[in-house]
């Protein structure tokens, strides 16, 4: 793997408001050379604002950004030397693929005998050599986005910024291009900051994920950390904990918590992640962690919930079942058992896989 062009990008206390509306508050992040960092969150969480601040397309409200100890947040975008890939590709429609890719080299006054070979090499890297003389409108969405990537990587920038680059593509192409992105990142030793609202994209691509909500950072960690140890109910919901069940604390001891659901009718053991707050709680359970046909678990009725299947969706190798338990408690579960709407079920949740959070976290 080639050496990254950057050693250390440091973002310190960056904030940004739009007309009194806080878009981003006190954002801190250190990115090391060669890292792939994903900013993850729903629209309006501040992730694109942060990216635009990095690119120089938005002035910071507060804070500073340094690249290898050189302050860059006061530079205009054209002097930062970063590559950027946009959601809608943003190719120059009046230029051919080749001239799109060469644009940045010309703008940066690269000697003309270098331009041709570098453009050809980048086009090879994204496998578009045979389309070099076409115009963007003659290419498919996936090809256009690959041109955009070639246009960014040809400059060998210290940092590549990607703003939801795969969101406009259809599902199959998205997974294909995702692999290609990761391959380029590794082969070329790039340092990448990637914005997305799709948690599977962030999990599969990134070395580190930053989860944002309403302009605040909720959690920073490796994909495994955020997936298995979400910092709060909100992150858990984002990481596939579809069941967030309102709960009251019965007792908490040694990192374990026992909570009551549905007004006390259901008792559930789980992992205590409440910190020391005393607010309302939620029990977070992934649909795949609810197993149909409990009873034989050994510890009797522990963590057993009785419910009735309401909606059953066929998904090939499994069924997604929406079931209703006591007192209007709605559960979603995945199972390979045969379940039909109206069936009475008892489902069991492994206590190690039930996370108890404060509801507001």
């Amino acid at each position, binding site marked *: 793997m080639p050496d990254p062009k950057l050693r250390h990008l440091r973002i310190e206390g960056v904030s940004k408001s739009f007309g009194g509306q806080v878009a981003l508050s006190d954002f801190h992040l250190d990115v090391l050379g060669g890292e792939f960092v994903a900013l993850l969150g729903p629209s309006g969480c501040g992730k694109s604002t942060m990216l635009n601040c990095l690119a120089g397309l938005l002035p910071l409200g507060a804070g500073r950004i340094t690249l290898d100890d050189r302050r860059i947040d006061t530079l205009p975008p054209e002097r930062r030397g970063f590559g*950027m890939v946009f959601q809608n590709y943003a190719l*120059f429609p009046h230029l051919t693929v080749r001239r799109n890719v060469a644009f940045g080299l010309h*703008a940066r006054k690269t000697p003309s005998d270098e331009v041709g070979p570098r453009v050809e090499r980048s086009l090879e890297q994204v496998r578009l050599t045979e389309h070099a003389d076409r115009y963007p*409108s003659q290419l498919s969405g996936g090809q256009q986005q690959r041109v955009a990537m070639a246009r960014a990587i040809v*400059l060998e920038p210290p940092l590549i910024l990607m703003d939801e680059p795969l969101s*406009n593509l259809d599902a199959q192409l998205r997974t294909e291009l995702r692999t290609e992105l990761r391959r380029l990142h590794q082969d070329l030793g790039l340092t990448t900051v990637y914005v997305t609202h799709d948690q599977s994209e962030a999990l599969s691509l990134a070395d580190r994920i930053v989860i944002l909500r309403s302009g605040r950072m909720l959690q920073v960690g490796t994909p495994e950390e955020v997936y298995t140890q979400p910092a709060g109910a909100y992150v858990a919901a984002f990481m596939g904990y579809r069941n967030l069940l309102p709960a009251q604390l019965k007792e908490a001891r040694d990192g374990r918590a026992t909570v009551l659901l549905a007004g006390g009718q259901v008792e559930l053991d789980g992992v205590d992640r409440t910190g020391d707050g005393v607010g309302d709680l939620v029990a977070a359970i992934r649909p795949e962690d609810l197993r149909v046909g409990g009873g034989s678990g050994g510890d009797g009725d522990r963590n057993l919930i009785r419910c009735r299947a309401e909606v059953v969706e066929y998904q090939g190798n499994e069924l997604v079942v929406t079931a209703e338990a006591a007192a209007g408690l709605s559960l979603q579960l995945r199972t390979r058992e045969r379940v039909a709407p109206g069936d009475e079920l008892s489902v069991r949740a492994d206590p190690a896989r039930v996370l108890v959070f404060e509801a507001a976290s």
Partner: protein
Amino acid sequence: MSRAVAADRPAAGRSLRHRLAAVGLDRVVLLAIPAAATIGLLFVYPFLYGLGLSFQPLDGGGVFANYRAFFNDAYQASTIAKTLRLALPAALLNVAVSVPIAHKMRRPMRFKRLITTALILPVTLGTVLVAEGLIRYFGPQGWFNQALLGLGLIDAPLRLTNNYVGVFASLVITGFPLALLIVLGHASGIDPDVEKAAATLGAGPTQRFWKVTFPLMLPGVSIAFMLAFVAAFAVFPSAVMVGNPSGETRVISIAAYQAAYEQFDYPMASTIAMVMAAVELAVIGVILGLRSRLYRGATSGGKG
């Protein structure tokens, strides 16, 4: 597949919509028929009639006698140059000023609606009203000259009306909003991310404008220029009211008017109208020729 299915059914059973679709037409296109017919009746027919008339000189002398008379008479033939001298710079100025304004106004900005309204307002005024205003404001007794005289900045009133300057000013006032509307309409279709991309690729503001924005604006600019030119070339009321209709602003439409309504020589008037049309078409042809050598496609990257 669908073609085969359609062929199986008896033709009589198919609706008008299906039958039109088979020849690549939509029913809505039929709505254009009245407009097309009107153009045929009110434009094409008089045009052809006038063309025919121009070849039938009142005093005989052959089919081209009127054209020969027009081009051999310096007083008449010079109207072409006089009109071009007004229309080309006016159209060029209107478009040249529209480009930077439209470029700025693409982005969200304060008072955009107010500014647009103020800029567009002259369209709703007729040329006559604008000419009136020019006389009252810029005439020898107008406020502008009175103010300068009162301040002691000038000794005699500046001659701003009843000459080339007056007509040129009226053409700018009435022509600019039209040009701006067209350029702005086209420029707002340019994807703002394209410029941002150019910035991240290292292009400064000047390079971004000349390498990206302006090339993408050019198709709209050329349409605006053509329309502004055609409108200015047909200038008549202001050339009479704020110009010097017997001298430097004796434009070609005045020559046609005089032939028709002072000398009652309809064939000669038709001849002048045909010359006018030919000059306009020649200029438009040149612009279209230049345009065909430039990029004319979408203003954003295709399937967004």
